[in-house]
Every structure is written in structure tokens, then in C-alpha cells.
């Protein structure tokens, strides 16, 4: 069955909040009803029908033909069994607090992508903005589950306060990757900069290229870690590069010793 499709008519005149257009919230609604859903974020009204032409289809799979950097909150609070694909770019907070399901974006995503993600599998073909998988201001923890794959570059503070789940960044990562890391796994294949793993409590950061590490990380020597081999197999389908790094022998740096010191940075030995 064909996916339920939203085709972009024209770039919206303001930022739009697409959290109302996830499959579970569209169930049982007619096209006319969906077209009347208010998605504007300013006082000037803007409705789904103004931005998209809508073609009915299988609501388990929603497809956006054409994206925009003004599309905020795509796939927010997505539920298990659903999938969303965006052919193009998206704006801020992609997959915000998604429970499960699958979200793919062929283009790039804005700030706070996968923020508070609880279990969704999110794949971004292009780059992402700052604060990937991070908590919003006032929240204590960032992403708490799921898997995020970024084919391009990530902005600053990716994985801030990450609590559970796996983050794969195939391109370069911005400053302070994995800062205030609580637990989980971050894999970065490109270059990293700034204070990597700053205040990392017990998370694992896997880096294909070893940067100058902060002095609060301690060299534990080269290791053959079974967990890395299991991860390598599980991640093979999502990122052959990440799997390759994990399959090899890894140099372990324990830290951040300025907090618990139970975390680690792993790089090829």
C-alpha cells in the first residue's frame, strides 16, 4: 500500500509545528479534516492544507515529498509500528520524544534533532544542527533510548546528557561531543573538537580518529572488548563504518575522572 503522502506546495511563510501530523494522530481523520489542522506557530493562521497537498494512503507510513528547514517537530512522540520519511530537509526537534518507530530524513535536520528520543530509529541523510539528542532547557536528561544515525556532520554538543541509546555520527562532530554524558553509546567517525566527553558519567564514546583528550581521561591500554563486537554486528546494517571501528582492537581511556570515571572513550588501538 502506498504511504500517506504530504507533498509540499510551497515553502511555508513561517515556522510550522508538524507534531500534529504523526500517523497515530491522523488515524480516523478525513483528508478535509487533516487539511484544516492548524500548524502555525505565529498569530497568522496557517493550516496543513495551505502547505501540503495530501494524498491518502497507508497511515502506518507517512511520507513528506519535499522538506523545509521550517518544519519543526516532525515525528514528535511517534509510536511503535509507525514510520515517517521526509524527502528533503527538516527544522528543529525532529523526532522529539518519539516513543518508537522509524524516522528517515533524506536531507538535513536542524537543532535539537532526536531531543528526548525514547526509542525511535532515526536516520538523517545530511547534517544536523547543534544539540543532537540533547535535552531542552530545564530537562535533566537527553535521549533515553533508540538509535540515531547521521550520515553528515553534527553540530556542537551532540549527545548532551544522553542517558540511553546509540548515536552514530558518520561525519565530523562539533565542539563538546558527549558532554554531560550520563550513559549510552556515541560513535563518531569524523573529526571531533572541543572538550570531548566533558563530565561523562558512564557513557561510551567511540571515535574513529583520536583527538587530544582532556587530562581527566586516563589511558587504560588496548583491549578486546566483547561488548564492542556485539555492537559491531548489531550496527552493521546501519553503519558499516561504525561496525568496522568497533570490530577492531580498541584503546580505552577511562573517564571523566572529574565525575564518576565509569565512562570511557574508545579509539582504534
Amino acid at each position, binding site marked *: 500500500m502506498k504511504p500517506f503522502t504530504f507533498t509540499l506546495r510551497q515553502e511555508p511563510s513561517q515556522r510550522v509545528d508538524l507534531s500534529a501530523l504523526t500517523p497515530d494522530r491522523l488515524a480516523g481523520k478525513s483528508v478535509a479534516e487533516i487539511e484544516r489542522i492548524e500548524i502555525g506557530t505565529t498569530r497568522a493562521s496557517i493550516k496543513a492544507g495551505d502547505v501540503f497537498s495530501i494524498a491518502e494512503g497507508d497511515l502506518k507510513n507517512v511520507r513528506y515529498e519535499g522538506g523545509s528547514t521550517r518544519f519543526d517537530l516532525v515525528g514528535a512522540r511517534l509510536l511503535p509500528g509507525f514510520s515517517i520519511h521526509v524527502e528533503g530537509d527538516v527544522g528543529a526537534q525532529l523526532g522529539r520524544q518519539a516513543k518508537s518507530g522509524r524516522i528517515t530524513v533524506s536531507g538535513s535536520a536542524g537543532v535539537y534533532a532526536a531531543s528526548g528520543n525514547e526509542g525511535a530509529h532515526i536516520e538523517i541523510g545530511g547534517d544536523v544542527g547543534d544539540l543532537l539528542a540533547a535535552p531542552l532547557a530545564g530537562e535533566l536528561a537527553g535521549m533515553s533510548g533508540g538509535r540515531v544515525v547521521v550520515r553528515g556532520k553534527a553540530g556542537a554538543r551532540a549527545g548532551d546528557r544522553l542517558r540511553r541509546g546509540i548515536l552514530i555520527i558518520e561525519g565530523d562532530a562539533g565542539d563538546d561531543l558527549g558532554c554531560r554524558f550520563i550513559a549510552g553509546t556515541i560513535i563518531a567517525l569524523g573529526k571531533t573538537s572541543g572538550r570531548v566527553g566533558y563530565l561523562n558519567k558512564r557513557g561510551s564514546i567511540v571515535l574513529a580518529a583520536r583527538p587530544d583528550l582532556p587530562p581527566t581521561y586516563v589511558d587504560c591500554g588496548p583491549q*578486546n572488548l566483547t*561488548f564492542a563486537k556485539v555492537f559491531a554486528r548489531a550496527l552493521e546494517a546501519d553503519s558499516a563504518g561504525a561496525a568496522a571501528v568497533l570490530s577492531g582492537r580498541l584503546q580505552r581511556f577511562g573517564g571523566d575522572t572529574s565525575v564518576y570515571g565509569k565512562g570511557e572513550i574508545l579509539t582504534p588501538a
Partner: protein
Amino acid sequence: MQGIVRNGVRIDDSFAEAFPMAATGVIVTAPTRKWANQAAQVATGYATSVIGCDCEAGVDCELSEDQTPDGRPGVRLLFFAFSAKGAEKALVNRVGQTILTCPGTALFSAFDGDLKIKIGDSMRQFGDKWQTSKAIDGRRFWRVPVMDGEFFVESQVGVLKKTVGGGNLLIMGADWESTMRATEAGVAAIHAVPDAIMPFPGGIVRSGSKVGSQYKGMSASTNDAYCPTLKGVTKTALEDDIGCTLEIVIDGLSDEAVRAAMRAGLKAIIDMGPETGAKRVGAGNYGGKLGPFHYHLKDLLP
């Protein structure tokens, strides 16, 4: 005893009687085959009969590098006990004593089962707060630092509540050598059957038992009817040409697994024929009073 004859081997018109058990399964891996097998050997050691020890355990199969979760050589072990609680106690003790301690090993759940028992969740405290957990694809693991690196162990393993213990074959031959030859062929054939183990030494029991004893307080004693050394002085089940009896005991994750195992064992024994192997095959039962599973030999013939 009037029986059926196949390839010259007499088959008793009898049945093996088996009873319900709870079972759990684990996959143990190690850097080399030697250490995977070493772990398997110690983990399943002294686990022959629940009457005398905490569980019945054995190697279900060896796993190659591409069949294990971490790409290392492994073994699939099955543990059977009278209850899920008993299985948990036995497994936690055994893993703590033999898998945690064995160099290079990691442990994974072999199946989801009807319920879960905590294994990594019990082992993790060995890490003295240096342990960390990892979740992947809905499964949770513990990384426990140990002196050769890390012990990687799944937090919980599955238990199947309705499995079968006590499927068996009695192999009778002219002497020890020929009976053993046939029995070993049976054991080898049963090893190839998935989801079934033979918990006794090398898969074989020589001390088949009957219920009760002439001594007070003994619940079981030697099955004198099948002892060749008592032929004639006791009420024997053996003919003149039988000089030795050996037994294969089978525990399986399902009724079908035990059935398939007994069928494979019978075929191998019958194929060998009476000249070099067994002259007669029987099965152990207690008249149907022990358990609900009955495996009639005549239904399992090749």
C-alpha cells in the same frame, strides 16, 4: 519378552517415561574453541540427575563464529530443573562459579522463554560498582570488569516452563565393548538433534535405577533386573545373550525434541546391527506412574 526385530536388533514393546521440567538455555562464547568448550565442561559438570544435584545440564550444540552474537566460538548449554526457581538457583550458582571465572567467556540468553531469570543482574555486583550496563536492540547486558578484561553477560535469560526430562533408551549387548559401541553411535546421533541434551557422563548412564531400596532411606537403587551380574539370582529382564546394559537419558525443550532424539538414537543403534553393536533395545519406565510423557519404541522405529 515378545518384541519387534529390526536389522537383527530386538526392540522391546515398551516405552520411555518422562516428566515435565523447567529449562533454561545460555550461549557461552570465548576467544577460542578450547576455552568455550572448557567453560561448557565445567558449567555442566556434576549436573546429571536432579535427584542428586541441583539440575540436569548438557551441551546442546557447539556454535561456530557466525552463529554466536559476538562472532567468537561458542556453545549452547541447556539446564533442566524441577521448577523455574530451581533452574534460576542452579544457573546463578553455576555461572558464578564456572562462567564468570573462566577466562575470556561471555554469556548470552539462548531463547526468550515463558519468563525470565536474572543472571547478569545477579553477577553484576561482582564488579564492585565498576560494572556498567549496555542495552542493544531491546536486550540488556552487563560489562563486569575482571582481570583479563570484561565479563559480558546478558542481564536476564529465558526459562521455558514446560519441557521434558527423562526420555531414555536401554541398550543391551553381548559385552561392554559392543554395547558401548552401539551406545556411542546413539549418543553421536542424538548430539545432532537440536534442543535435546544427554546430561550423564558422555551422554551415558551405567547405573540405571529402580524405585525404592532394601535399605531404609534410599529412594532409588540399582536396576537389578538389568544387571548382567545378577542374571538368574534376581528376577532378571535379560536373556542369556545379554552381558551388558547401558542407558541414554535425554532431556528436551519440547516433546518433539525428545521424540526426535530418541528416534535418531534408535536408528543409529539399529543401523549398527547385533554383530558389532547391541542385540536388544528397551526403555525405562515405572509403569506410567512417573510422568505424562510416554515414548513407545515401536512408534519411533526407523
